[in-house]
């Protein structure tokens, strides 16, 4: 039981990070029809900005973290929108999808060339201390990760629900045409979505990299986790992405520990979220928390 609780907390911690990536992915899909296949690379990259700042500029970690998020917002938010998405959305969804795949490839191989093909150690925001609470050993860094990720999610939810800008963003996501008529500056809201996505990816990157190490090929795993989380949760809902992310994280961790018990080799751990994806698509295609969408003619 104590083992189970430990695994649960570790799972929630990685799951909360997946949720950050999945929320951004969902927001982009809703507000700008951008299905970002480079989302995993978006989460992989900011850690390397931080490493570059630490090793290149010699700045302390907290400043490097801020620089990383700043670079992410500019490059993965603003530049991505202006240089890739804006010219391509006019050509239709398929060219845009293809281009985001190419962007992913570009970021992945660019990182490999510019930094290293080896996994890099990445400093943690938190201590490695472990505390025992009622016989359950809890890692403080996992609690810290969970806390930061949940705080970011809560702040985002508050922003979307309680501020005028956030509500305008939601309006843009639901119906850009009507939003425009009602005086929402749709273009600005779409740009804001890209900025938010990049910031969330930056935070996720700083949180996940101490666990997974910073490696150019991390985007594959992280992207897949984000896609599965978004679809499992119901991609037309931000809270769906949150639930999906946490679920994928927990299932992934439990599968790593318990799969041998049900006769499945732990080398198939990566396949568990995929099985979840297929089950959800088969039995609840709108996602666990999603609404059915009417088909538009």
């Amino acid at each position: 039981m104590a083992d189970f609780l430990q695994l649960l907390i570790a799972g929630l911690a990685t799951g909360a990070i997946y949720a950050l990536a999945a929320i951004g992915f969902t927001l982009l899909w809703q507000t700008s029809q951008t299905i970002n296949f480079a989302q995993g690379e978006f989460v992989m990259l900011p850690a390397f900005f931080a490493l570059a700042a630490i090793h290149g500029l010699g700045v302390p970690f907290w400043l490097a973290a801020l620089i990383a998020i700043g670079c992410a917002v500019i490059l993965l938010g603003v530049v991505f929108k202006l240089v890739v998405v804006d010219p391509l959305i006019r050509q239709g969804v398929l060219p845009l999808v293809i281009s985001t795949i190419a962007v992913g490839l570009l970021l992945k191989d660019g990182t490999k060339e510019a930094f290293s093909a080896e996994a890099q150690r990445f400093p943690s925001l938190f201590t490695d201390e472990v505390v025992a609470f009622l016989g359950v050993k809890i890692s403080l860094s996992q609690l810290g990760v969970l806390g930061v990720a949940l705080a970011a999610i809560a702040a985002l939810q508050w922003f979307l629900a309680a501020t005028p800008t956030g509500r305008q963003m939601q309006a843009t996501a639901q119906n850009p045409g009507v939003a425009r008529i009602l005086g929402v500056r749709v273009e600005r809201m779409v740009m804001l979505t890209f900025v938010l996505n990049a910031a969330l990816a930056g935070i996720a990157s700083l949180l996940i990299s101490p666990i997974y190490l910073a490696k150019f090929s991390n985007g594959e795993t992280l992207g897949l986790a984000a896609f599965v989380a978004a679809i499992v949760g119901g991609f037309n809902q931000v809270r769906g992405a949150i639930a999906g992310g946490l679920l994928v994280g927990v299932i992934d961790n439990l599968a790593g520990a318990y799969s041998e018990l049900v006769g499945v080799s732990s080398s198939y751990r990566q396949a568990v979220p995929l099985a979840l994806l297929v089950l959800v698509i088969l039995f609840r295609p709108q996602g666990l928390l999603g609404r059915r969408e009417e088909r538009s003619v």
Partner: protein
Amino acid sequence: MRSGLAWALVLLAVAALALAPLGLGRYDTYILTLWLVTALAALGVNLIVGYAGQETLAQAAFLGIGAYTAALLTKGGLTFGLAFAAAGALSFAVGLAIGFPALRVRKHYLAFVTLAFSVFVWLVIRNEEWLTGGVMGLKDIERPALFGLSLKHHRLFFWFVLAVTAALTLAMWWLVRSPWGRAFTALRENPVRAESLGVDVRGYTLLAFAIGSAYGGFAGALYSPLVEFIDPAPFALGPSLLFLLMVVVGGSGSFAGPFVGAAVAVLLPEWLRFAESYYLIVYAVLVIAMMAFCPSGIVGLIGRLWALRRRPTQRAAEAPVLEQAKP
């Protein structure tokens, strides 16, 4: 008249291809054969992307299914012909099985399911060492024999692959020209209208995906005797993404597109050998630029340049006729 000319050009190209290895060395013939195999798999992707309007991120996985099926069956004593058929049939069946749930939902779900599927196939190939040899791969895959004549020589094997590719290309040609294939085009242009006209959208899309995947399996069955050694690497997610990109770069929805795209994907790394590590970066930038300025790919670009060269009056005179010729 125009189509007669086109057929003559195609025949000329095939004849030139058939003669090419006579003037080429062993390695260049190998690259040319690899191009044909790649084009065959890309032909399948084109049916899925260019005609049925879906995205597949698993063609390399189907190539792997075909490659391992053919290699294991021929090692087990089956003739190559049967192994080849089994590779295609298995890919077709797997395509149906994963396409069915994905296409029930909505657009782009096939992309995610195939993405997940390619990771799964890669895991199976890597983990099931008793069957696939894991990361050590399968060695000494025999090249087939035809009517008692061994195709071990690189030139003979090239001609064999050329013949198979030509036959499957003709089959695909017939498929997309048949009433059945024209339904695909209707479906890509306007799925809702196609459905209201009685086209079973889901059924057609599913079949397109399964047939396209079967082409991946066929290509894989040719790939393993070509390289004579297979391991998991060429069937991972990365190569699957490259298959999708090469079809779009060549020109998705145009019949020659996959051949052009495969040429770029196979030959360009050979020519850009000096820039080896930057190859993918350059390629990715090219893809984005291409999508922004000419989403119809290289074939579309050539068509556009061709149209520019000709006199505007001639174009104006021909345009309505071409429009009417479309059903």
